[in-house]
């Protein structure tokens, strides 16, 4: 709000002037002009801020001074350049030093809003000038080539809705954990870009090339080795996400996108692809994204994300009431489509098929629903995903049986149970692992 607007607030000012003013100022001035007083201050309060509209401020839902008046009696905010969330909706990611998690429990449907897509980076998010961006493809190719962003966008484009999930996407340990905290390192977007196979044809990949190195231009210059077969099959160099340029946190201006494969292989800010006849054994594919299994063995190149599901409603910290409850959640598999989701409302004794919400896409978050009458007695609810390869999402017990108690923290996808208490409280059921 400008100084002029502040002076005008509370006075009658010509309507034309206000319409010319920025939408933010206009709304505040109108509220002032209509004589609405809040907390003894002219509209907008002493700070001159409009809830949810001024940059960097969101209303406090518990702040009675920000209470809302009848919206039919005040002209609303005028059309603007960028949309905003309702000030009453405040979904946020949950950041740590190395990652930030999607609030799965706050989302509807299967698309993750781009600003809520999970983040994982190894040396922060780089700032890359799209005019200076180049992708180099070399090594075992006929014609080593450099592509600008403009070049990449000239090739025939493709679009695909699919998830990306970090393979280290499991946390447990206490009852008061949300889906975001348990497995918020999975998100879904519509990705737009050029098929890597199109670029492979352009450079003439040598038939004896079996692997390629994907390298990012972040400060970690992060690298992963990928079998060439995946590059021919369905890999994409993505530059678009949900209708706009890919977000910096997701790899602006371009990233590798490998449908169904562990998040780390989807190298962001990609600057170089080197075709080779051997994997490079980079730090990420040896010391990091590998997992201990039985007999001290260490499993390597575990690319596919196994099928998984999570009930996002009801979940902690939601509160439910006796009566009809539509159990909702998402299921996904890196190996194909979700075939079905089974729901138990009696701690795993009986299972029923949930309704899958269309679209049911290959290697994509799929929404499920199951209508259930809760009699108010304490119970446990859980979901189990089955994909079209016949893979059934395992229990923690089955995972430990298969991999041993020393199993590493990657690719852990157990059936997740929520405990419904008699008072309607919903708590996560953490299971012992080590």
């Amino acid at each position, binding site marked *: 709000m400008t100084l002029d607007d502040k002076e005008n607030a509370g006075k009658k000012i010509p309507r034309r002037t206000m319409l010319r003013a920025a939408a933010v100022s206009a709304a505040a001035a109108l509220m002032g002009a209509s004589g609405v007083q809040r907390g003894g201050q002219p509209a907008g309060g002493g700070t001159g801020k409009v809830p949810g509209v001024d940059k960097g401020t969101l209303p406090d839902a518990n702040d009675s001074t920000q209470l809302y008046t009848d919206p039919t009696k005040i002209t609303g905010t005028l059309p603007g350049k960028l949309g905003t969330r309702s000030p009453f909706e405040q979904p946020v990611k949950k950041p740590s030093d190395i990652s930030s998690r999607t609030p799965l429990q706050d989302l509807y449907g299967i698309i993750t809003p781009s600003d809520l897509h999970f983040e994982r980076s190894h040396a922060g998010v780089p700032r890359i000038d799209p005019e200076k961006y180049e992708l180099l493809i070399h090594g075992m190719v006929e014609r080593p080539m450099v592509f600008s962003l403009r070049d990449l966008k000239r090739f025939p484009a493709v679009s695909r809705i699919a998830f990306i999930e970090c393979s280290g996407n499991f946390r447990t340990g206490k009852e008061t954990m949300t889906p975001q905290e348990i497995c918020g390192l999975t998100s879904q977007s519509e990705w737009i870009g050029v098929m890597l196979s199109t670029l492979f*044809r352009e450079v003439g990949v040598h038939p004896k090339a079996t692997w390629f190195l994907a390298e990012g231009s972040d400060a970690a210059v992060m690298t992963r080795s990928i079998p060439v077969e995946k590059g021919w099959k369905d890999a994409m160099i993505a530059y678009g996400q949900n209708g706009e340029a890919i977000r910096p946190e997701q790899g602006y201006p371009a990233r590798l996108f490998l449908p169904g494969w562990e998040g780390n292989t989807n190298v962001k800010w990609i600057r170089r692809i*080197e075709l080779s006849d*051997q994997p490079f*054994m980079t730090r990420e594919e*040896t010391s990091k994204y590998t997992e201990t299994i039985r007999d001290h063995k260490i499993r390597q190149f575990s690319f*596919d994300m196994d099928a998984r599901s999570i009930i996002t409603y009801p979940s902690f910290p939601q509160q439910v009431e006796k009566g009809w409850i539509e159990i909702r959640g998402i299921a996904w598999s890196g*190996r194909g489509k979700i075939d079905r989701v089974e729901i138990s409302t009696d701690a795993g004794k009986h299972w029923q098929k949930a309704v899958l919400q269309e679209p049911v896409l290959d290697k994509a978050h799929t929404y499920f629903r199951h209508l259930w009458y809760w009699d108010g007695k304490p119970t446990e609810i859980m979901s189990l995903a089955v994909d079209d390869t016949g893979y059934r999402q395992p229990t923690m017990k089955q995972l430990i049986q298969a991999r041993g108690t020393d199993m590493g923290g990657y690719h852990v996808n157990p059936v997740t149970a929520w405990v419904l208490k008699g008072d309607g409280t919903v708590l996560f059921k953490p299971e012992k692992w080590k």
Partner: protein
Amino acid sequence: MLMKRTGCYRVAAVMVLGMLACHTNTRPPVSDWPSHFGFGKTATSRQIDSLNISIAPDGKGLPSGSGNALSGKAIYLAKCAACHGETGAEPTANRLVAPMGDTTRVKTIGNYWPYATTVYDYIRRAMPFNAPGSLTNEEVYSLTAFLLYRNEVIDSTLSLNAVNLPKIVMPAKKYYVDDDRRGGNEVR
């Protein structure tokens, strides 16, 4: 052929078979696509050399130069110890040192890393965290030697270079196996 790396070559062999099986991939997905679109520029060897810092486990890509644990220790104390601890064995978030057989359950270079070339490649591309890519090739050889020595993989006097670094057999390499999960009704 360098068939020594059995672990990775088993995977590679599968991939070769896969390639042969779907060689049609090299044909355009749409029949009227040109064989080449002509977008992009041929990369010059100078452009390639300015970006190509990758090192393969057979040593391909290792630069000339050398370094030993003694010179590495001084560099380590000056540029690495702030995050990784004075000796590398401190319980930091990124502990580097614990020889195979040490009782610690933390993954380190000595008890978990399968290739010595990876130590060189990673330090050179990403370290130190506050000044990535600032070390000389000699400094990286020295630091690699220091960390391998501290993990009881090499002798304190060994001068590492492009020839002997890829020959080092890391203690944990024997534990590595390829992913055997295949979907279907089986939990692995």
